[in-house]
């Protein structure tokens, strides 16, 4: 509490350069889009390549029935059973697996499952984590302390185990489908949103504009809704995409350990990999390599988007400028007069 912060009149921080005269489109989404558009160099590459990969999987997921040659659990067509563990060929490009199901169809339908689960999980955890973080951070006190302890405990807990236990416990009541997986994954991501939002609220709460709102007589609800929310959710797109990537790995992990979605419910890549372990021992690579590549690609795609967004939105990582300045030659400017005839001091003494 001593000489910490007093006025900094000449402070070159805020009032450094006069602001541009043109007004930019705003609103939270306008601002986000504005920043995304300004991405440069590698960040831009990350964003667009990631978005491209993700878009491919979204298309696969939405139009799976039209794109996939067979159903996700179809093992025969036209009355003919497919070969068991058949190698890739003209009619089954990715081969067939131990259940005689077409691997290509499983991979395509798998993207549908993955995206369903991840979207549900992200939406659920946003709806739980963000308000909790806002309330906890703004009010503080015992409620905050208890929530923080619980969330920290959940966060520190090995997330896969948590998901397994939740899935395991929900098996009897909810079943072992998409919803169970989504809830299990939600539980492990809520603490992340909570932590991030709460952290942002804690720092935003000290901002003069929040105090100004209080000084105007605004109620806590108004302050949270109008002053904190939009300034706090800036980092949410980044975590949401990175978490979506992470959630796909968790879903696959659940499937791999046998606690995920059962093959009768939907096609799931992790489960396919688990079944592929035995095949791999026999040298039958296609039953596991294709679903594996699908996981890696989708996760990579989402992570690239997340990293790209982080570059663009995170003020810490944002660069002030990327462009190199090239000075125009002096004599190019007609108004610059090279003669400095008035100066008759200093020049002559240039070198001692």
């Amino acid at each position, binding site marked *: 509490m001593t000489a910490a912060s007093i006025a*900094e009149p000449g402070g070159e921080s805020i009032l450094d350069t*006069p602001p541009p005269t043109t007004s930019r489109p705003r609103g939270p989404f306008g601002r986000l889009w504005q920043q995304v558009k300004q991405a440069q160099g590698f960040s831009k590459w990350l964003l667009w390549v990631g978005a491209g990969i993700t878009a491919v999987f979204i298309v696969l997921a939405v139009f799976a029935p039209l794109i996939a040659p067979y159903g996700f659990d179809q093992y025969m067509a036209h009355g003919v059973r497919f070969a068991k563990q058949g190698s890739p060929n003209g009619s089954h490009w990715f081969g067939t697996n131990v259940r005689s199901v077409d691997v290509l169809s499983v991979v395509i339908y798998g993207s549908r499952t993955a995206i369903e689960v991840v979207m549900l999980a992200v939406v659920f955890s946003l709806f739980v984590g963000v308000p909790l973080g806002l309330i906890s951070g703004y009010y503080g006190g015992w409620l905050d302390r208890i929530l923080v302890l619980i969330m920290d405990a959940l966060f520190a807990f090995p997330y896969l185990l948590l998901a397994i236990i939740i899935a395991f416990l929900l098996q009897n009541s909810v079943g072992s489908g998409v919803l169970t997986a989504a809830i299990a994954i939600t539980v492990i991501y809520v603490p992340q949103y909570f932590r991030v939002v709460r952290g942002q609220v804690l720092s935003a709460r000290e901002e003069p504009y929040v105090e100004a709102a209080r000084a105007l007589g605004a109620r806590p609800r108004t302050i949270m809704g109008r002053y904190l929310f939009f300034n706090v959710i800036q980092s949410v797109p980044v975590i949401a995409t990175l978490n979506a990537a992470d959630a796909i790995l968790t879903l696959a992990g659940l499937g791999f350990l046998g606690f995920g979605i059962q093959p009768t419910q939907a096609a799931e890549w992790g489960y396919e990999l688990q079944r592929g372990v035995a095949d791999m021992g026999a040298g039958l690579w296609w039953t596991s390599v294709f679903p594996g590549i699908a996981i890696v690609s989708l996760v990579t795609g989402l992570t690239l988007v997340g990293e790209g967004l982080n570059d663009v939105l995170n003020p810490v990582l944002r660069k002030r400028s990327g462009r*190199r*300045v090239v000075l125009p030659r002096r004599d190019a400017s007609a108004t610059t007069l090279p003669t400095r005839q008035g100066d008759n001091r*200093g020049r002559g003494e240039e070198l001692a």
Partner: protein
Amino acid sequence: MTAAPVISVRDLRVWYGTERGPVRAVDGVSFDVRAGETLGLVGESGCGKSTLGRGILGLLPSGSAVDGSVRFRDRELVGVKQSDMREMRGAELGLIFQEPMTRLDPLMRISEHFAETLRAHEPELNSEEIDARSIDTLRRMGIPPTRFRHYPHEFSGGMRQRIMIALALVLNPAFVVADEPTTALDVLVEAQILSILADLKRNFDTSLLLITHNLGIVAEACERVAVMYAGRIVEEGDARQVFSDPSHPYTRELLRSTISLSTTALHYIPGSPPDLVDPPSGCHFHPRCPSAMQVCGSLDPVEVRAPSGQRVSCWLHGPDELIPPGGTAPLQRQELASADEA
């Protein structure tokens, strides 16, 4: 003036890039600082004074472009190799910063800061010599030797600024840039630091470029003053002379709008400083200048020697032969919207 300049800056330009285009932070600046002299560089925020100070030491963000000339004694600093520049920084050229609270590495003891600095430039020193020299410099800045091995967070803001000054001076540099060294400090501590800076040349024989927005500090601590506006030096000369008889309209208006204990009436300059991405043509001050003439908006002013002795870049002082016919007529301007002013 007989002393040779320690630093001689000629036509220096420093531009750096932003999304909106290059910022002409320093746009053709010339001045000298002589041995043992303190030159005050004064200007409002955003006028490029900090960029100028850093430009001399080669500490600019990547993507900046520099040309012109900075001579330190007989060495040219513009375009010098980074490694050579590094060797000169600290040893020959020092820098004191605005915000002392964050300038010391929080994980290192004060003693380690000194050891690192001295070892970087004088590797032959042993640790007793390093300690002795550091403690001696600190003592001259008013830091007791008992606190030599403390961590930065154990010091107050004023103490940290004293430590920063000691760190800049422990190698006895010939030239030091002090960039708003007291702006973040309380007024009593500011006065303490200013008196330390004023003693510099007595104790260390160091030339100082004191960058500030506060005319009072210049009056207090500097022999000469250079007034900077929108990337250019508009007036430069003996401090007493400039303060008592300012030649450039900007200097005059700035002095009048400064609120001091002797202020009896409020005065201000209309408009606000220009955007350095797209500065006004001709004299950058002409849109705000109460004395603007036709010529001011079209031609860059030429530096002349004012009758009172200071160098000034303003068409009011000529040279008359360069002003086109009719150029001295008063400039007709649109009425400024009142909010454009602030």
